[in-house]
């Protein structure tokens, strides 16, 4: 049962990732990214990371993909731009990606990743533990990350405004 769910989710995820790479239309690529993220969220649920699955759907599927679609709309790109990459570059890209996949795969298979039996947290207690860790052990990183978000927001405002003045 778990195996079947894992297999179908991973096939969905990989197929949609390939769809992002191979799709000519940018909007279709964004939709493939959305489906791929949904598959990843399903895998997170299988790994008992319910909170992270929720956050992934909220932040990535809700905000990031919507932002991508907004930008596609704003830039008014015509769908179906031609591929026209040079054959050598495409070949080199495929070979590099295949090498990377083989290396990482060998590391995963031969690296003796065997771990102890997974601890099964109950749902509520896991979330409570998570929040506890976030606000005790990792309190400083949380505040730094919040500051980073503020800096990013100010940066985006500055970038957008400056180009608006420059174009006039």
């Amino acid at each position, binding site marked *: 049962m*778990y195996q079947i769910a*894992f297999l179908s989710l*991973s096939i969905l995820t*990989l197929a949609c*990732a390939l769809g*992002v*790479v191979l799709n000519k239309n940018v909007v279709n*690529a964004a939709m493939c*990214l959305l489906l*791929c993220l949904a598959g*990843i969220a399903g*895998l*997170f649920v*299988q*790994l*008992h*990371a319910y*909170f*992270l699955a929720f*956050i*992934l759907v909220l*932040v*990535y599927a809700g905000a*990031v993909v919507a*932002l991508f679609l907004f*930008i*596609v709309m*704003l830039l008014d790109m015509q769908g179906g*731009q031609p591929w026209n990459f040079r054959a050598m*570059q*495409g070949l*080199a890209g*495929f070979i*590099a*990606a*295949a090498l*990377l*996949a083989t290396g*990482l*795969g060998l*590391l*995963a298979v031969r690296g003796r*990743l065997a*771990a*102890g039996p*997974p601890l099964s947290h109950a749902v509520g207690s896991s979330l409570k533990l*998570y929040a506890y860790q*976030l606000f005790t052990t990792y309190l400083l990183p949380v505040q730094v*990350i919040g500051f*980073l*978000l503020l*800096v*990013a*927001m100010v*940066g*985006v405002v500055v*970038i*957008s405004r400056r*180009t608006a003045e420059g*174009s006039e």
Partner: protein
Amino acid sequence: MTPSLDAYVLLSAALFAVGFLGVLVRRNTLVIYMCLELMLVAATLALVAFSHFNGALDGDVFVFFILTVAAAEVAVGLAIIVALFRARKTVRVDQLDSLKH
């Protein structure tokens, strides 16, 4: 019977490779950005799998930070892409070659 850690790490490696392929092959800046996001999410999946199979929550906490940084990065990156488009009227990387020579 749950899938093993190896399966999750292999899937994450394959996802990362697909994203890498997209960054190398595609010419549209927006699609390259989507493939970057794909690579980030692949790393995230590996972290969550390791965290689950070791019974620790540190990986999960790190994933929280990665998601936050990714959101900030997307906002800034897309603003830069829009600024670039306003200045150069294109988002294709083979036409953005001012620094090439």
